[in-house]
């Protein structure tokens, strides 16, 4: 049986052994309900509070009570956005966010729009970078929330959150940060980021799935999202997922402990992989910021190849990656992130995301470097677009194909702010 080479850590991660070990007692013996008065319940309560403290410490929250445990990152995000919006509905009904947010943010905003809120989706530059001044300009007297992600899940670009937070503070507007891709991977401090709300998900930092948390700055006014008992100080009802929470706490603790060495290890492998791809495959573009980017993420647009075919071809070789397009509602849609950074439609279809993690080894990366160009070559061999390109009937849409910086913008072709019409490759 071939070994799986997992290069999709932005989708989810393997549970780290320390987290699994920490969870097991709460799946086996300590099954108490944390709300119960007796000892068995108190065991659970204690474990939850310890996990909460660890999380608070990891993100630099002053008080563990500022951490509210949720059933995952999407829940935290939904609650942050809808909870604040509903609470402030008599004050104003305007939200500022960006064009490259995760669908949990996007669709929460769309939902509010359907209820009469107005949302400004601020654009980004070629690298997916948000200009803080654009956020400042978008804020009106009706703005009740700004929501910007810390790092983009698809292209890895790190946003200037501290600066944006500063602006929000000056303007007196609450600021939510979707830090699902960064907590446990790079230092995250709610003080340095100047945020009022911050979402995280355990399974992105080697914790279990189905558990997450929302940091809520004291004094934030927001409606509850899940109503029921008085759990989480009346903020989030529902019997706590004790084992999950314990696993999240342990994962956060270990992630912090090993953060530096994990980053060094992963960055080295990622850089090596990236470099090899650009030297072995022609007509490839790097999506995302060349420097302000998560150390584990490489997003590529490979000309004349379908992302779907790439994923399946790599899967057959035991390599797990994901694409820039998702067959979500039945339609194959181009990622809104790639659209926002101006990747031409047909190039965006050939996008793949490689996101590395702590357990990846040098051998695995060698194997990926060996397999990936072969898969691309085989798919290009059946691509009529590639045939035309090779015959000189079509020119590459990647300016860098002629040599040079692979992350060069498409500036001689189009401007992302002009929309997507007429941006197909010229034959």
């Amino acid at each position: 049986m071939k070994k799986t080479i997992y290069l999709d850590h932005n989708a989810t991660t393997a549970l780290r052994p320390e987290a699994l070990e920490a969870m097991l007692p709460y799946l086996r013996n300590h099954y108490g309900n944390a709300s119960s008065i007796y000892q068995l319940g108190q065991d659970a309560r204690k474990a939850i509070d310890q996990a909460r403290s660890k999380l608070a410490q990891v993100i630099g929250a002053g008080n563990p009570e500022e951490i509210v445990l949720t059933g995952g990152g999407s829940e935290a995000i939904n609650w942050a956005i809808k909870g604040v919006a509903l609470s402030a509905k008599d004050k104003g009904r305007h939200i500022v966010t960006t064009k490259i947010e995760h669908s949990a943010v996007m669709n929460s905003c769309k939902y509010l729009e359907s209820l009469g809120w107005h949302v400004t989706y601020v654009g980004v530059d070629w690298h997916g970078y948000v200009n803080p001044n654009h956020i400042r300009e978008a804020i009106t007297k009706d703005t009740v929330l700004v929501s910007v992600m810390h790092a983009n899940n698809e292209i890895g670009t790190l946003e200037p959150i501290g600066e944006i937070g500063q602006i929000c503070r000056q303007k007196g507007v609450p600021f939510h940060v979707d830090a699902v891709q960064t907590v446990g991977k790079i230092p995250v401090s709610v003080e340095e980021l100047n945020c009022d709300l911050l979402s995280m998900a355990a399974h992105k930092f080697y914790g279990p799935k189905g558990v997450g948390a929302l940091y809520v700055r004291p004094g934030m006014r927001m409606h509850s999202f899940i109503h029921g008992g008085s759990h989480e100080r009346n903020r989030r009802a529902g019997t706590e997922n004790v084992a999950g929470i314990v696993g999240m706490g342990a994962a956060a603790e270990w992630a912090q402990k090993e953060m530096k060495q994990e980053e060094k290890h992963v960055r080295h492998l990622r850089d090596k992989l990236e470099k090899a791809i650009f030297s072995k495959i022609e007509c490839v573009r790097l999506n995302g910021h060349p420097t302000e980017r998560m150390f584990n993420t490489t997003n590529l647009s490979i000309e004349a190849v379908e992302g779907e075919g790439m994923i399946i071809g790599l899967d057959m070789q035991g390599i797990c990656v994901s694409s820039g397009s998702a067959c979500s509602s039945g339609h194959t849609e181009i990622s809104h992130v790639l659209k926002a950074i101006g990747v031409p439609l047909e190039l965006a279809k050939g996008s793949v995301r490689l996101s590395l993690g702590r357990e990846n080894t040098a051998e695995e990366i060698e194997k990926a470097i060996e397999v990936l160009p072969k898969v691309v070559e085989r798919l290009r061999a059946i691509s009529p677009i590639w045939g035309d390109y090779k015959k000189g009937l079509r020119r590459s849409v990647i300016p860098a194909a002629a040599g040079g910086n692979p992350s060069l913008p498409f500036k001689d072709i189009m401007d992302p702010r002009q929309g997507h019409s007429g941006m197909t490759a010229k034959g």
Partner: protein
Amino acid sequence: MGQKKIVVAMSGGVDSSVAAALLKEQGYDVIGVTLKTRNWDDTEGRKFGGCCGSSDFYDARSVAQALDIPHYNFDYVNEFRGSVISYFKDSYMKAETPNPCIACNQYVKFDRLLHHAQALGADLLATGHYARVERHDGPPTTTSGVTVKTPSGTTAESSSPQASGGDPSFVLKKAVDLSKDQSYVLYHLGQEQLSRVRFPVGEFSKPEIREIARKYGLITADKPDSQEICFVPNNDYRGFIASEIPQEERPAGPIRYKDGTLLGQHQGLPFYTVGQRGGLGLAVGRPLYVMALQRESNTLVVGEKADVFADSLEIREVSWVSGAAPVLPRSVSVKIRYKHTEARAVLMDPRQGRSATEPLADANAVVASGMTTIKAVFEQPQSAVTPGQAAVFYEGDVVLGGGVIDHVID
């Protein structure tokens, strides 16, 4: 490794489910693939048969899970629209009657998907078709000095590897269960394709296939057979044409009796097919039958039952399973639509007279010059020889080749 990789096109029906199960049992490294041929959103609130609905995708996935094989969904919406739906519409616009399943097999499954599978490292492709492929080792039975049709549509001299001595040759045969035989929709397959396709269910009867499905506990075991065109909602092809072809491109026109008498008005030629009885809106006191759709004059010609019988037809885009045309004339069995009972006919070069019995000096030289048109003369006149439908040539249960019916020769 070591196991041969095979892609199985899983439609979500019982036949392709069992094809996957049988191949897995035979030790292949089976990869299930379901083609998404239509956007599911388009199908919302409408009933679709065939293999394009999302529920069929879930059935295929469930079967793949039960068999413990990987399963992927390939987005073929553009390919399908470009080569099947557009063909379907074009055919009606030419006043012909299309067979979209053949187009799907010819351009989507056994061309695009076959190449796609190969690019993904699987040399073999299987489907749930009821047909058989037989491998014969040794020199091919084809005569030398002919061209060989390769899958890419180009031709190669007989010195190409397929036709040189020693290589195995492949024979396409009817299914064991003749009531389910689908070799008719596969006549276009050539040697290269046959060397890489498998039809595992062709060896079994339909009840046996359902039995195997039950044995494996597949949820598709008792799923009804699909009889419909997969992309036409509720099998209402007239409604589909009405919505897909603008009205000005299918104008109403005269219905004339075979002697030229004006009998009434038709609703647009695409709504009729040769041999059709009734549905003409005529009150003449006896049933009349559609004899022909005349595109130039936009006329629907009708006549008596006996008038829809014809014995000579011209067939275009002819291909041969062996890769080479037989010496003409040649007596074969010809099937002119899916449910037609094949009938004996003589195939000949279209330039030959009806009574000609002498072969052309060098029939193969004609083939080599790119002739893909052939003439067939039935021993007994056949009902509803319909342009656009396939004419498939058989010798016993062996498929020799086939083509598209171009017109009836008066």
